[in-house]
């Protein structure tokens, strides 16, 4: 029996080693001695080892989960801080997703960043990201989870601002980091409250501790259950990391980074860390009452509103970013109605087709010589056929064409929402249906405008006088590989995932079992589910969206143009992202900066520095100036003081 502990350590550490080697010796930090070919070998081997061992671990823990306590790195008072791994079905699935998408992105980067001067630095960063994400999903205690959480936020900051000479990139990465910081603050509060009542950071101890479930604390004369409070704070952390409203505004701006990281971080892995964390603590969230319906409502609001914003964007990557936001809203909806397996399944399928879409967008951007505005593209199916077909596969999977993978995950979410009865479930159900329509609308708009519409046929790059060409094989290869799971994984894995009992130790069976059992009663098999889509509303909404987008963008072009004229206020609202960015910049950030300025200029400079530090020096100086006037230099003054003081002292002596 091979030692799973050392295999898990190798999985985690191999991307870290490749990242350190590339970072120290490839970027010029210690030396710039690694050429681009060697860098490829080091980086790909690092992640390939992780991927192969992840497959092995996945099949080993399929029926039994393992706990490994690796190392206690500190002991404070009687609190042990450990590094450990808890590998169960959820963790191993996430490990597979992370390593596979990371491997695809590594291969893609060889072609995409070929001419960039920061080539080795980029590989170092994405390997480092893989390390942090693996630590996050494999951890068995909250401190390690938080370490991975912060780490992925940090590497996301580094990667969004990869081209650090662009001011928009610097603005975007600061925004991403600060908004994630807000979420991390809530997450820390949640961890602290849980620790106070459980006295341990380990997952098993937390979930099995009754003290946590029955304690209440007193805040302002009202008793609040500790469980609900800590789940609230944990959800704030998930809201920032998984970009739900209101902490979502960093994700569209994070498209300033290179396309491979958009595929890796902002589609498949980092933004799913919040979802993963909530499912990991589903035992706590199940008992938190109204918080679950709050989660579902936030998810549905995100899904709906971000989808609507996606229709009006003109940058390829931003449309796909808003699509990611919308799909994350779907995952939160699934969590909110206690259908955790379905949320993880949607996470799985979404990782594949969204990474595929982002990488195709990157291929288009390369082919168009770094042009990202879709109004300047068109007719690319002639020039980039492979990209066109893979993009079409990704799009069809996203909108939920029957038998493709996105269909199975999205439709089961909508079914679960229909069956649930949490507070507000009607709103959630209808917004998810409208979300299907809108998803189809923006996806087909994107596909038609980029690949087919030939109104703007200026694909001749006037600078180089070249036609857009298909990208090189190393860029196409990940697209081809990723389209296979996008097509087939839903069909084959939906039944074992949702209705097998792999999740029985992870997810408790309270409300969750009602939904899953009701779904199981109606389930026959995948083929039946797919072919019966014709009888369900979402399928026809998707067809309606396709028809509308055909009408607007192929046949009649005047309606989108006139939208700005006929609905100016609505247009302004949507163009300013519902004024979330305005609130963040003008109200929140500006006032916090003003408070900081107040503390700096008035309290620190004037009061503490001026009054206490400099003021005491000034008083002493003033005093000494006064005293030094006594020393006049004239001898007769000195003799006067001498005799006068002798006379006074003698007087006192005689009197006493």
């Amino acid at each position, binding site marked *: 029996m091979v030692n799973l502990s050392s295999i898990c350590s190798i999985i985690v550490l191999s991307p870290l080693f490749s990242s350190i080697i590339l970072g120290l010796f490839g970027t010029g930090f210690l030396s710039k001695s690694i050429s681009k070919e060697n860098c490829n070998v080091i980086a790909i081997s690092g992640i390939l080892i992780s991927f192969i061992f992840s497959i092995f671990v996945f099949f080993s823990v399929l029926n039994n989960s393992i706990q490994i306590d690796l190392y206690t790195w500190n002991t404070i008072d009687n609190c042990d801080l450990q590094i450990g791994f808890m590998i169960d079905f959820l963790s191993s699935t996430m490990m597979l997703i992370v390593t596979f998408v990371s491997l695809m992105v590594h291969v893609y980067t060889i072609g995409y960043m070929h001419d960039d001067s920061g080539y080795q630095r980029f590989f170092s960063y994405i390997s480092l990201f893989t390390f942090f994400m693996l630590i996050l999903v494999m951890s068995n205690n909250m401190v390690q989870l938080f370490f991975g959480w912060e780490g992925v936020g940090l590497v996301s900051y580094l990667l969004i601002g990869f081209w650090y000479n662009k001011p928009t990139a610097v603005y975007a990465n600061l925004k991403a980091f600060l908004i994630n910081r807000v979420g991390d603050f809530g997450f820390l509060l949640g961890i602290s409250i849980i620790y106070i009542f459980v006295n341990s950071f380990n997952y098993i101890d937390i979930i099995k501790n009754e003290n946590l479930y029955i304690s209440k604390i007193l805040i302002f004369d009202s008793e609040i259950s500790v469980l609900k409070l800590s789940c609230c704070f944990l959800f704030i952390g998930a809201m920032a990391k998984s970009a739900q409203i209101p902490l979502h505004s960093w994700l569209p701006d994070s498209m300033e980074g290179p396309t491979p990281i958009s595929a890796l971080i902002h589609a498949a892995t980092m933004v799913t860390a919040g979802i993963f964390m909530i499912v990991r603590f589903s035992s706590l969230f199940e008992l938190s009452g109204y918080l679950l319906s709050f989660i579902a409502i936030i998810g549905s609001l995100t899904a709906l509103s971000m989808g609507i914003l996606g229709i009006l964007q003109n940058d390829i990557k931003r449309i796909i970013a808003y699509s990611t936001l919308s799909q994350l809203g779907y995952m939160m909806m699934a969590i909110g109605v206690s259908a955790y397996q379905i949320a993880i399944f949607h996470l799985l399928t979404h990782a594949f087709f969204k990474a595929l879409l982002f990488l195709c967008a990157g291929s288009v951007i390369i082919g168009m010589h770094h042009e990202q505005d879709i109004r300047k593209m068109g007719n690319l199916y002639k020039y980039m056929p492979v990209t066109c077909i893979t993009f079409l596969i990704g799009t069809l999977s996203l909108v939920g064409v029957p038998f493709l993978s996105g269909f199975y995950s999205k439709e089961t979410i909508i079914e679960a929402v229909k069956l649930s009865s949490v507070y507000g479930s009607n709103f959630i159900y209808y917004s998810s249906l409208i979300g299907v329509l809108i998803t189809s609308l923006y996806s087909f708009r994107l596909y038609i405008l980029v690949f087919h519409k030939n109104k703007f046929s200026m694909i001749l790059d006037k600078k180089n006088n070249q036609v857009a060409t298909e990208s090189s094989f190393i860029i196409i290869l990940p697209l081809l590989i990723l389209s296979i799971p996008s097509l087939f994984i839903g069909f084959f894995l939906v039944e074992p995932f949702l209705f097998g009992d792999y999740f029985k130790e992870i997810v408790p069976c309270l409300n969750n079992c009602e939904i899953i059992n009701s779904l199981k009663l109606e389930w026959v098999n995948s083929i039946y589910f797919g072919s019966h889509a014709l009888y369900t509303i979402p399928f026809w909404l998707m067809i309606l969206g396709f028809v509308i987008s055909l009408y607007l963008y192929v046949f009649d072009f005047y309606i989108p143009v006139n939208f700005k004229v006929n609905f100016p206020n609505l247009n302004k609202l949507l163009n300013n992202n519902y004024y979330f960015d305005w609130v963040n910049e003008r109200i929140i950030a500006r006032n916090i900066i003003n408070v900081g300025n107040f503390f700096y200029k008035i309290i620190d400079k004037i009061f503490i520095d001026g009054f206490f530090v400099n003021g005491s020096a000034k008083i002493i100086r003033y005093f000494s100036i006064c005293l*030094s006037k006594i*020393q*006049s*230099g*004239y*001898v*007769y003054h000195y*003799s*006067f003081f001498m*005799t006068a003081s002798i006379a006074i002292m003698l007087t006192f002596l005689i009197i006493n």
Partner: protein
Amino acid sequence: MTLFHYLVVSLLLFMIGMFGVILNRRNLLVLLMSIEIILLSVNTNLIAFSSYKNDLTGQIFVFFIMTVAAAEMAIGLAMLILLFRNLDQINFDKLNNLKG
């Protein structure tokens, strides 16, 4: 004439000398003379006590004091002459170099 009167004389002389030192601002020679007057008052004091107590120690001590006074005056006058050579005046206006 009791002892008290002689002591009063001595005190008055001392006061005159003291005021000459303190209130004098225009004449260095007057300063030296005032110092002499102070020493003289101390002498008078000692002689008065010696006469009253019929003890010769006081009068012998006066000799010592007068010797010291003479030596001191010699040095003082020498310094005065040097000062006059450098400053061309004998009042105190410029003698505050140690001010501060």
